[in-house]
């Protein structure tokens, strides 16, 4: 068995942090593999991530990447429709999957004695196309119900769709992952097969296996089931060049809700950049815990909001900083917005105290120490790091990217990206 690019990390980060050991391989068809033996209980998790998502779709065919995610459980060359989950279940396993703008992840957990069954099932989906029209039509119905449930029938459920079209206008990030209703309805089998052929290729794939595994035996099995799958097609990555926002946009959206909501969005640099880590810390200062600025100023002292939150999240090519506030019934949103503006201006002016900064670092330490709790979560994290950052060592060293930051980095990042002319404000109001 050939295995290239073996890499082992065993240095401890600090005495306090238990390091996670893992190994990396690349098969000759380009498939990337990460293995991590965590011992403990006799289960294993397999995460297979394809570096393709809704951004690889085109206008008129939105929702295709997510539709394929559903269909990958509905039949492959040797696994008839409906059998994937049945076979897995009777072997004591479970599976699920999710689609993002940039990638699609499939995960399986099984008793470690049945790991080979997981590889057999999962690799069959990569070995060839075996989806039928019947599966396609049923899954279109299922997805329409999924969209109705999460978007149309949920309070504030249209938020992703409403913000994406404004924040990423003119790019392939501008539509929701689940797609537009008419596009889903009109999709045909050829659309599905073309997308599959283009993007579901070994060189576009990362497999991460965690849990009770032996390294040699596991890479042998992966070679056996995935190593001989070759295809000549080359996938091309869809580039994304978000337009800079230079003027504040405000929109009002009527919804079946009882409490008014305000959602403020800014474009920021993507995950992996110094600025993005700064925004992660900023979101902690603003909204994590009851000592945070939002909780104290908006909820506790002034009884203005039911909830106020902030978060920094990222797609592969762009990050987003989001602030949200759900007003208490009868409170004036303008007063809430003025308070939020005041807090952001305060941060930009450099007014961050040592205690609130150190608090977030302490919180990160707790979170970082608990990153080895679930093998499914760990395999997902490895696949993400390999797919998006091509760097698994972040599992042990990403904390350093936070520890080098200063209070000034936080206020500088805020000053550069969180100005009022750089934001889009969505106001949800009761119908």
């Amino acid at each position, binding site marked *: 068995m050939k295995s290239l690019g073996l890499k082992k990390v065993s240095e401890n980060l600090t005495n306090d942090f238990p390091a996670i050991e893992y190994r990396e391989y690349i098969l000759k068809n380009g498939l990337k593999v990460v293995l991590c033996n965590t011992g403990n209980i006799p289960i294993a998790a397999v995460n297979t991530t394809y570096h393709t998502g809704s951004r690889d779709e085109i206008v008129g065919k939105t929702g295709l990447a997510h539709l394929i995610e559903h269909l990958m459980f509905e039949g492959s060359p040797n696994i008839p429709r409906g059998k994937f989950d049945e076979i897995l279940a009777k072997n004591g396993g479970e599976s699920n999957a999710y689609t993002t703008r940039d990638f699609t992840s499939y995960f399986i957990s099984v008793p470690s004695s049945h790991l080979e069954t997981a590889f057999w099932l999962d690799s069959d989906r990569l070995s060839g196309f075996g989806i039928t029209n019947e599966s396609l039509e049923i899954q279109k119905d299922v997805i329409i119900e999924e969209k109705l449930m999460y978007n149309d029938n949920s309070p504030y459920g249209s938020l992703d769709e409403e913000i994406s079209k404004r924040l990423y206008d003119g790019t392939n990030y501008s539509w929701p992952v689940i797609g537009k209703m008419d596009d889903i309805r009109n999709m045909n089998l050829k659309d599905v097969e073309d997308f599959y052929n283009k993007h579901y290729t070994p060189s576009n794939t990362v497999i991460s296996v965690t849990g009770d595994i032996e390294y040699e035996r596991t890479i042998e099995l992966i070679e056996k089931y995935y190593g*001989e799958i070759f295809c000549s097609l080359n996938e091309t990555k869809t580039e994304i060049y978000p337009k800079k926002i230079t003027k504040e946009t405000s929109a009002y959206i009527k919804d079946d809700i009882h409490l008014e909501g305000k959602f403020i969005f800014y474009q920021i640099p993507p995950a992996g950049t110094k600025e993005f880590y700064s925004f992660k810390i900023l979101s902690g200062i603003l909204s994590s815990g009851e000592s945070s600025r939002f909780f104290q100023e908006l909820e506790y002292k002034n009884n203005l909001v*039911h909830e106020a939150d902030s978060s920094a999240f990222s797609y592969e090519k762009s990050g987003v900083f989001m602030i949200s506030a759900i007003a208490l019934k009868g409170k004036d949103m303008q007063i809430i917005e003025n308070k939020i503006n005041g807090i952001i201006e305060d941060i930009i002016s450099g007014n961050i105290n040592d205690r609130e900064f150190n608090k977030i670092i302490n919180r990160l330490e*707790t979170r970082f120490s608990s990153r080895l709790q679930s093998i499914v979560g760990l395999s997902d994290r490895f696949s993400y790091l390999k797919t998006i950052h091509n760097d698994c060592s972040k599992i042990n060293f990403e904390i350093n990217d936070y520890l080098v930051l200063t209070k000034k980095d936080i206020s500088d990042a805020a000053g550069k990206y969180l100005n009022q002319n750089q934001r889009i404000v969505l106001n949800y109001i009761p119908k």
Partner: protein
Amino acid sequence: MAIVKLRSTENLDRTKPPKSGKPKDMKFPGFFEAKTSNGITVLVIEDNRLPLVTSRFVFRSGAAEDFFCESKKPGLSSITSELLTKGTINRSATEIANEIDYLGASIGSGCNYDATFVSSYSLKKYFSRVFDIISDVILNPSFSDEEIERVRIQRLNSLLAMTDDGDYLAEKVFIREVYKDFPYELPIDGDEESVKSISRKDILLNYKKIFYPENLIVAFVGDITPDEAISKLNENFAGWENSGLEKTEFPETPSIKSQKVFLIEKKGAVQSSIKTGHLGIHRSHPDYIPVNVMNTLLGGFFTSRINKNLREVNGFTYGARSQFHCCKHSGDFSVMTEVKTDITADTLDEIIKEINDIKNKNVSAEELRDVKNYISGNFPMQLETPNEVATKAIGLKLYELDDDYYSTYLNKVNQLTKEDIRQAAEKYLHPGNLLISIAGDTKALSKSLKKFGDAEVTGDNI
């Protein structure tokens, strides 16, 4: 017939599944157990792989107490537990938040019908300081008027916001009807009228009824030894005395009702949120295991009959599940799903058909073997983290299960026969007695659901 396109000529024969080894045995982990002189049950689930410690305080009474107030006070126990962390005689709410957040720790509290929970989570190196705060929160809450008003306003707004969610509305009415005149009939979070009326006096009395040493199970989880745990517990709780209040006596379990339809208007609904079922069994019921294996087959997981029918065959829904929700003194059975308004009646027909099928016909040997394998294979997954083990250990005490319950669990599952499954279905499923609770477009539903009986229609201000 599918047209299959293979990508390469491989030597591997993919047509047959690989042979697997025998699953490794997974024993339920042992844990330390002791009782303090004032009657606190102490559990220690030690696991030093990560430098973290969780403390979990579980009091053996919860929202069911709301039923036993002079006049019923839904939401009272839940508000009492929420207020614990909002100030003590030694620390203000903000001081508690400042210190807990600074240590990178978290604390939380809440309740269900049978129990009240308070917990902390922190790095080991800060455990002692965090434990001092959580002890203070449990022993010396101040329940100040100012904090009560703040929680009251927030709760009233939560109740309002929750009515935007169809699943919440359907569940609320289902619970009210299935447990009518039994303590579980009341919504744990309360209702507008009750939340507005709760006084500091109510809260103090509720606190006294729930928070005393003999009512308490404390589990220490993670990087902590039994010696460390006991000594820390004694330091803070040795002087805590029992109140001497009598334990609440529960009334007789309610009976199964006759079939009835409840429709709740959900403004702008494009789907129906369905919750349908009837009374079930309590957690320590001797038939709990056969009933749950039967339910797993019926609607307990992805490839169960109900999900396969409604999602994979008919494309009616994104997902559908059934469950036996088992509490300490009673329980309920229900099927839950969300579907388009115009296929609501068809969906109910299919649900009723599946319930009748499992009741009237033996499951196949293959189906039974497969579900046993699924449950056996999945069991270790539920013991992955020390906190998951602790949840089960606490459950043994809270629901008064046999000490060997989890060590014999898989054996009992694997001994079940087709006849056991059919008997469980026969005895505990009643497709002719379904309470059908649906939030959605009541005007359209009143017409299409006529064949299921007359409907009681309400607005969302339930």
